[in-house]
Structure formats: structure tokens, C-alpha cells
């Protein structure tokens, strides 16, 4: 992204000049308070929003109306609310939706769906209706719908919101095993600490820090400026366990 600004139709500014470059294979955390611009950045990278000013490039492609098909072939965006992502009647059909739109032959679609569901541990959910899944299952299937597209870049918006601790832990392990580029927007700083080598800290539509996750997320003053606080594991526990 180069000098990207974005203004909503109502006049409120979501991004006020955002610059960064992410290289292939990097895992990057996007952190910041509510309304800092995390989701807006992800939506720009997927071409859902088009920059009012500045340039967004994905690989060799500038993101514009004419390149949307190419851009979206490379980028997979997992939405914050899985209900927005899962719109087909059954899990199988939902995961098959993207590959079917790529006009792949049916055996290949089936194979991709099987692989994607197996990847997130949801093979058994194939024939279930999407609206009858638990929160964790929904999240897993939403991830599978994007994995089935074989994206080069994976964008995740608040992936751990509403997950129980075990499911969240599985997600962190899984994020570590994904070898392509991934960008994770989250308030869950411990998740970012565990799964991202690099972090961008956002405040009021600008990037105020960009560097190795460990050094940024241990800087209490910086985090406070961004409306955040230290990751929970780095905060002294007020409860001393009895021995």
C-alpha cells in the first residue's frame, strides 16, 4: 500500500495515508483500537473497498475495478462474522462455492472441498446445513471456504473472536502451519504474538509502528498510544496461586 486514504460516503475518514509492503510468506499482525482501520485495510487488499487516494498492489496487480478478478484469485479474506461468509445451504456447497466460480471440473471441486475441510478439522460437517453449526464450527468452515480457493495471501479479520480456548489454540497452531502470506487483524494480542512475526500498529487510520511483533507488543507506551494494552501473558498476574 502506498499513501492509501479512504473516506466513507458519509465523510468519515477510515484510512489517512497508509504505507507498507508485505513480502511473500510473511505473517503479519494488524492491531489497533476499534475503528483504527484494521478491517478497512483488509477490505482494500481484497478489493472490496477501492482507495480514494494512493495505490494498493497485490503481487503484480494494482487493485482496481479492472483487476478485481485477478486480485481475488490470489487473496482469500475470512470475514469477522462467519454468518456473512457462509451463505450456501450446506457446508459442502459453501466450501465448493469459490472453486465452482473458478469453473473447475466437479472432481477437482470435490477434492478441494475435502482438503480444505480436512485442513481445519471439519471433514465430518460436509452435509450439515451452515446455519446449524456451533460458533467454532462456523469459524472453521468459514476458513475452509477460503482455503478451497488456494489463495497466495490469507486475510483474517478477528479470527479468534468468540472461540473457546481449545479452538483458539487449534487456530493458532493452524496459522503457524500455513506457509503462504497471512495478515491477521485482531484484538487478541496473544494470538498475534503466537502467530505473527511482524506487526503493524494502527491508530486513527495511520500506521504508528511497524516491526517485529515481540518488540512492538512489549512496548507498553506504544500500545497505550494505540488504545491497546500489553498482551495478557505479559501482564503481571494479580492472582498468586496457593501452593
Amino acid at each position, binding site marked *: 500500500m502506498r499513501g492509501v486514504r479512504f473516506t466513507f460516503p458519509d465523510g468519515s475518514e477510515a484510512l489517512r495515508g497508509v504505507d507498507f509492503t508485505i513480502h511473500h510468506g510473511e505473517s503479519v499482525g494488524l492491531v489497533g483500537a476499534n475503528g483504527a482501520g484494521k478491517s478497512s485495510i483488509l477490505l482494500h487488499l481484497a478489493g*472490496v473497498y477501492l482507495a480514494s487516494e494512493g495505490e494498493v498492489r497485490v503481487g503484480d496487480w494494482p487493485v482496481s475495478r479492472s483487476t478485481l478478478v485477478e486480485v481475488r484469485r490470489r487473496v482469500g479474506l475470512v470475514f469477522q462474522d462467519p454468518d*456473512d461468509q*457462509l*451463505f450456501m445451504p450446506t457446508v*459442502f*456447497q459453501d466450501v465448493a462455492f469459490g472453486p465452482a*466460480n473458478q469453473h473447475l471440473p466437479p472432481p477437482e471441486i470435490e477434492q478441494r472441498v475435502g482438503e480444505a475441510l480436512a485442513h481445519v478439522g471439519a471433514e465430518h460437517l460436509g452435509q450439515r446445513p451452515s446455519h446449524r453449526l456451533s460458533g467454532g464450527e462456523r469459524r472453521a468452515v468459514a476458513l475452509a471456504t477460503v482455503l478451497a480457493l488456494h489463495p497466495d495471501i490469507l486475510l483474517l479479520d478477528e479470527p479468534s473472536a468468540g472461540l473457546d480456548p481449545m479452538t483458539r489454540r487449534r487456530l493458532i497452531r493452524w496459522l503457524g502451519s500455513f506457509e503462504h502470506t497471512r495478515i491477521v487483524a485482531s484484538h487478541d494480542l496473544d494470538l498475534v504474538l503466537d502467530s505473527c512475526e511482524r506487526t503493524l500498529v494502527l491508530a486513527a487510520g495511520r500506521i504508528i509502528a511497524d516491526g517485529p511483533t515481540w518488540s512492538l507488543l512489549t512496548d507498553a507506551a506504544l500500545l497505550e498510544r494505540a488504545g491497546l494494552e500489553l498482551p495478557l501473558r505479559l501482564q503481571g498476574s494479580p492472582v498468586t496461586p496457593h501452593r
Partner: protein
Amino acid sequence: MTPIDRAISHLHSLDASARLDSPLGRLDARAKVLVTLGFLVTVASFGRHQLLQPLPLVILLSAGWALSEIPVRSLGFRLAIASPVAVLIGMWNPLFEPEPMLRLGSMVVSAGWVSFLSILERFLLGMAAVLLLIGSTGVDAVAAALGRLGVPRVLVTQLLLLYRYVFVLAAEVERMLRAHSLRAPNRPRPELRTVRSMLGELLLRSLARAERVHAAMLCRGFAGELRAVTPLRLGLGDALFVLAGLGFLALVRLADLPRAIGNLLR
């Protein structure tokens, strides 16, 4: 459980029955859609004073219901929920058509009552057939079949999305009503003024959600058409089912079976 909760769980159970592995469930969705359409056309084609002629259709329905292995109790319950609509439509007929038409022993039945019963009968038959179709096939397979049978893609897409999001919308209404009842415990139902703003809020939320869903679809390469991947395969069994079903419907429509049976018995 609130009425919305109950409605949702009924929809869920209808959905669950579609996954039963029954003889009717295994048939191709297109075959079932065709026979159901034939059934509805046949039911609708009877005149409003033909009370007995459509009755043999019950045989076809019962056979279908037995083959579907769906509990009959659930059918009765759903028909009971829907029947007030038919009662409301037909209830004025006895007033409009007071002339006598039938004599049952010493009782004279007017034409209005006959047409009222006929509306109710045809409504229940049609409703049962549609419930049987959905219950043995599932909304998604019915939509896929409609698409293959030439129904415009836009309609099929709308049907699928409507079915998917009716659950989300209902859950949203449910949460709003719960929030209302927790903050206004002395009022079982929200006031008209509150309902108005709730509806407005619901519309705005739905629009926002529609935008997000559309974005999610675009991100996965949506180009205006939901590509169905439900495998549909017509076999010999399906062809026989369609032939037998439509044949029986034609027989019921063209020959007056109840009268023929009556003549035989005489």
C-alpha cells in the same frame, strides 16, 4: 421457548428429515419436483364444488409419506399451523352461496359450505404435498432441481439466500425481543412505537448484512450465478416414479374415481 424459537426449530426438523435415507429421499429432486408440480396443478384444477373427486389424491400422498419415513405427527402439526389461512379465505363462502346443493340425510348443505370445504381440502392436499417435497428433499436440492428444470437463476439464488438468512434474521428478531423483555419486564409485547423503531433497525441491519454477504460472495468469485454442485442423476427409478405419479394424477383428474367405485359397489 418463544414462537420464533419454535418456528425455527420446526424449520430445522424439516431440514433434518431431508437427510433421512428413505426410498423417497433417494429419488432425484427433479423427479419429486415434477410430480409435486403435477400434483398442485391437479389439485387446483378441480372445480370449487367438486368435493369428492380430489379425495383419491390422498392415496398418492399417503404412499409418498410412507416412502419418506417422516413421522406423520409432524405433518399434522404443520398443517394445523397453516390451515387458518385457508379458513380465513374460505369462511365467507357460506354467506355468498346460500343456495342448497347437497342433502345428507335430513340435513341440507348449501353450495357455500361445499366450496368452503373444497378450499380447505385442496389447501391441505397442496400444503401436504409441498411439505412432503421439502421434507424428503431439502430446500437446497429443490432449488438445484428448479434451476435444472429451467427456473430463472435469479429466482433460485433468491430462494437459496432467503432460506439461508431467514434463520439469521429470526435470530436477530429473537435477540431484539429478548433485549426488550429484559428491559421492559412489565410489558409482554413491545408498544407499536417500539416495534416501529425495531423494524427500522432490523431493516438497516439486514441491509448492512446484505452488503457484507455480497462482499464475501464477490471475494470468492461470484459473478451473478450460484453454481450448484449438488449432484443430480436421473435413473430408471426416478423415471418410473415420475411416470407412475403423473399417470395416477391424470387418472384422478380424468376419471371420477369416487363415482366409479360407488357404481362398482352398487
